[in-house]
């Protein structure tokens, strides 16, 4: 099957994606909540900004990250004070993945929040529950399948992330070389067709599994079964 190096690539890819999605999910949920329930000036602008990584060329997103997080960047200099740098690190790859997966996650989460029947929330309030308890016991559990579907979808998107990652943190074996980057590298080397095929098959399998899981969860939103 896979060589030890290829296994390392798969493990690194999964790690990068897991950290990316785990880290960005709360932010995505907050954004989804604001867009679904918020009434404020600039909501349309926030909506557009959230969707930007979906339509920008990934290389531009990567370059913008480079500007912000590079040694001279605003965030990069601030992080350097704590001795932290994401440049050329797997954490940088996770950051690029998170940004690219963000719009998809917000979309799925927003739909699931909008699908929650607000009449149930008002019923809960008449029964003595304050806003926080209503959120924790009614809104969040009812929206949860969609929230998880959004995370799985984001995870799948993140596994396929290429352009922003290679622009932002380059292609360093063992550090930032995720599956798509490894496939790209292998394609540059004559005679590595079987390696490319193996890695591509792994890629297809992972994406398919993630999409299936996401679809199963999304169907739960329509029914009110909840997991």
């Amino acid at each position, binding site marked *: 099957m896979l060589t030890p190096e290829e296994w390392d690539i798969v493990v690194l890819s999964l790690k990068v994606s897991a950290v990316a999605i785990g880290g960005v999910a709360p932010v995505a949920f907050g954004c989804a909540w604001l867009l679904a329930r918020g009434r404020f000036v600039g909501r349309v602008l926030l909506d557009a900004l959230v969707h930007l990584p979906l339509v920008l060329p990934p290389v531009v997103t990567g370059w913008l990250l480079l500007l912000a997080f590079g040694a001279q960047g605003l965030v990069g200099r601030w992080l350097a004070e704590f001795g932290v740098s994401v440049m050329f690190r797997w954490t940088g790859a996770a950051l690029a993945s998170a940004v690219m997966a963000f719009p998809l996650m917000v979309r799925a989460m927003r739909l699931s929040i909008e699908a929650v*029947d607000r*009449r*149930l929330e*008002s*019923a*809960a*309030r*008449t*029964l*003595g*529950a*304050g806003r926080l308890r209503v959120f924790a*016991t*009614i809104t969040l*559990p*009812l929206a949860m399948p969609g929230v998880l579907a959004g995370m799985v979808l984001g995870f799948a998107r993140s596994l396929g992330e290429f352009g922003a990652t290679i622009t932002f943190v380059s292609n360093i074996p063992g550090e930032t070389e995720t599956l798509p980057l490894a496939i790209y590298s292998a394609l540059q080397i004559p005679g590595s067709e079987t390696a490319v095929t193996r890695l591509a098959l792994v890629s297809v399998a992972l994406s398919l599994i993630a999409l299936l899981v996401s679809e199963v969860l999304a169907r739960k939103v329509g029914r*009110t*079964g*909840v997991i």
Partner: protein
Amino acid sequence: MSSEAAPVFDIDVTVPRGEGILHLSFASHAAITALVGRSGAGKTSVLDMVAGLLRPQAGRIAVAGRVLFDSVAGIDLPPERRGCGYVFQDLRLFPHMTVERNLLYGARRAGSEPSLLSLLDVCALLGIEPLLARPVRRLSGGEAQRVAIGRALLSGARFLLFDEPLSSLDPARRGEIMGLIERIRDELGLPILYVSHDAAEVERLAGNVVPIG
């Protein structure tokens, strides 16, 4: 808390309604007060205002001498502090919970009140004990109606709001639920504001009838 003279329901509200304005003012001393009127007259809106789910443009709402809303005095209690047991026309049972968890959802508030009812009392009163472990989507119309009433009773409610509680039931079930409402009135002494468009129903239950629209 409530003086002898205070009406059970003392309501004087103004709320925009379609093109015009709905103004409603009544004070009722009856154990059950019925709001009657054609559909669309705003009966449910009145219940929503008493429950705190709809804010009147102006006015005053007091139940058993306790002021829930007063636009002049700047009082507007949030729904969770009004102490009402609202049985919605569309029931609004929580679909992701069992019957038992639905029934106990409001029990937290009841815990801080000198509560009159336990889960067992309510189960006995409504005959819903065999349903406790069931998910609510597997209840019949009459069962769901009784669970919704039970949930309101167990929430430490000081008064009850009923929105057309019989409209979705067959005649046999209607008689049964009507009997229950009479028992709640007689045995628990909870004031009830009752919305209906059925004259016979109102004739049997209500001590005071307020026309709307």
